[in-house]
């Protein structure tokens, strides 16, 4: 750790991992509710478990992004963080607000929660992924603004590198597009149209910039390849991301009441969306192949390579699978979407956060890398979680194909719940894969507490 203020990243990383555990536990509850419908009912109904599962995902990824930025920016800017105290204050505010929101979801009926939290003032609740009550949404804005102020001021007073500027654009974009979560037109078409400006332009737009900059930072540190080479790759990736991702939003506009031309725009541009992920994978492998040093933190390098591959598969390949309008006509909202969502989120954003944590945590704890024993355990966790996610995706894809056949493509389509019964086998298999994922996650956490001979920080 080169700058004292980088230490503020540590609580963010710890919180991120804690919330990640919560997300996976609720994922397992949900998975079981798919096959045992009244499991934990009425204590945790399906809609609540789903909301907690997806909201925890978003919040832990945001914690990871913030922690990663607080770690990376001082080192890139070659100066201490503008205000470590502000960063710590925002950490506690965000954590408490997040925890209260989850407690609210679990203890108060959603409609009552909406009433209690002033949803009648600005109606923002009740929409997938953006279910947070108004005070939480406002809290997110306050935390995001304070965070961006802190990070931007640090960059302004220090050195400006391409990597930190790309990260800043990504983070500002994240904050700006979140503002659309406050815009909830009565017209359902317009509602959906702008809802995607938060959801899609986050995950297939500005978050990719955050991913690219984190990846570039860790690859510079672990491979010793010239910054100029890595930055030029980053420019290409950013360009490809924005060219394909922005108009690619159109792949969500099929048959929701938007003009028909979106079927063409959405199909063409989103078909190009795998290209930045392709470039990212070639980039990561190329840099590791050209490395000028053997960094002692092998686990971080493994996460870096893994995020390229899994993001390409999950976001690129599985996204392409159902992105063309004629295909999406049948697959829209089926388990194929769930398969894509699981692998894309894990491959692109969970893994890049785990990569950052893997690289930064040993340094935050005063060593260049963890002991071999700890790294071996972490690599086991990597493979268990990654292979489990591959199987989750494959089982959900199989379920989705069958669902499309039974419920959509058939001459005598079955009702939704009848089709669900017929694909239950795949839900069971997905649940078991989920158990293995949890085992991987537990091993990952254990790896933090394993001793052995540590590599000294240089």
């Amino acid at each position: 750790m080169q700058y004292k203020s980088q230490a503020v990243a540590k609580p963010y990383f710890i919180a991120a991992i804690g919330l990640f555990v919560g997300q996976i536990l609720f994922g397992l509850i949900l998975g079981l509710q798919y096959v045992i419908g009244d499991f934990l009912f009425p204590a945790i109904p399906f809609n609540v478990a789903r909301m907690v599962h997806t909201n925890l995902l978003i919040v832990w990824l945001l914690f990871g992004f913030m922690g990663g930025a607080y770690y990376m920016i001082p080192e890139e800017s070659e100066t201490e963080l503008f205000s470590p105290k502000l960063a710590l204050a925002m950490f506690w505010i965000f954590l408490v607000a997040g925890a209260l929101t989850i407690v609210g979801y679990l203890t108060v009926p959603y409609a009552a929660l909406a009433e209690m939290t002033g949803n009648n003032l600005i109606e923002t609740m009740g929409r997938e992924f953006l279910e947070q009550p108004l005070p939480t949404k406002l809290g997110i804005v306050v935390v995001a603004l304070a965070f961006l102020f802190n990070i931007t001021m640090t960059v302004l007073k220090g050195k400006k590198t391409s990597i930190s500027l790309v990260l800043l654009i990504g983070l500002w974009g994240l904050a700006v597009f979140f503002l659309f979560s406050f815009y909830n037109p009565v017209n359902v078409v317009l509602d959906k149209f702008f809802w995607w400006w938060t959801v899609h332009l986050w995950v297939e737009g500005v978050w990719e910039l955050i991913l690219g900059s984190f990846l570039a930072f860790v690859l510079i540190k672990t491979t010793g390849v010239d910054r100029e080479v890595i930055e030029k790759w980053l420019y290409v990736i950013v360009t490809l991301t924005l060219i394909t991702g922005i108009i690619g939003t159109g792949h969500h506009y099929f048959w929701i009441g938007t003009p028909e031309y979106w079927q063409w725009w959405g199909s063409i541009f989103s078909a190009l969306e795998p290209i930045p992920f392709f470039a990212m994978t070639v980039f990561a492998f190329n840099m590791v192949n050209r490395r000028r040093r053997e960094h002692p933190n092998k686990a971080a390098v493994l996460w870096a390579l893994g995020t390229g591959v899994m993001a390409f598969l999950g976001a690129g390949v599985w996204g392409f699978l159902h992105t063309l309008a004629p295909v999406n006509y049948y697959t829209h909202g089926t388990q194929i979407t769930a398969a894509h969502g699981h692998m894309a989120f894990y491959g692109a954003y969970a893994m890049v956060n785990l990569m950052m944590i893997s690289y930064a945590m040993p340094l935050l704890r005063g060593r260049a890398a963890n002991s071999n024993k700890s790294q071996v355990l972490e690599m086991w966790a990597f493979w268990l979680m990654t292979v489990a996610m591959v199987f989750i995706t494959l089982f959900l894809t199989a379920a989705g194909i069958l669902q499309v056949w039974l419920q959509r493509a058939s001459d005598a389509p079955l009702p939704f719940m009848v089709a669900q019964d017929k694909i239950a086998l795949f839900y069971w298999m997905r649940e078991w894969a989920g158990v293995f994922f949890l085992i991987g996650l537990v091993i990952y956490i254990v790896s933090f507490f394993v001793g052995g001979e540590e590599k000294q920080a240089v």
Partner: protein
Amino acid sequence: MISEEDFGVREEIPGQGLAIAAEALFLLNLLALPGLAFAILAGLWFRFRHDAPPLARQHLRQAFVVSLWGGVLIVVCSAGILLAGGLHEQWTWVVLILYFTCIHSTLILLGMVALVKAMGGQGWRFPVIGPKLDCQP
């Protein structure tokens, strides 16, 4: 002015440009221009198979032979699944789509590694279906 060096391509080893072209065509054949990219790759292989530098020869051979294998694995096996299972059987589509997606993605990922090796001026053998290396670059 952006040069190849900027993206991590070294021009130190003879035949590196051709090696990169071979692996890029392998990927293009899978991703964007099936058939056409293979025709160009085959043309390069027949034109340079005797007199190209060892690195280029090796990548051309790998890319050409694995493209043929890829054709068998993707087209022939998929057609086999379709014929064996029947067009109107639900399980045919479950198996076919999963098989196609997995095999196609695997070939692309291996192609990416091959491209990176070519960019680094190193030899590469595709696992299992790649022909044995007969010359070291």
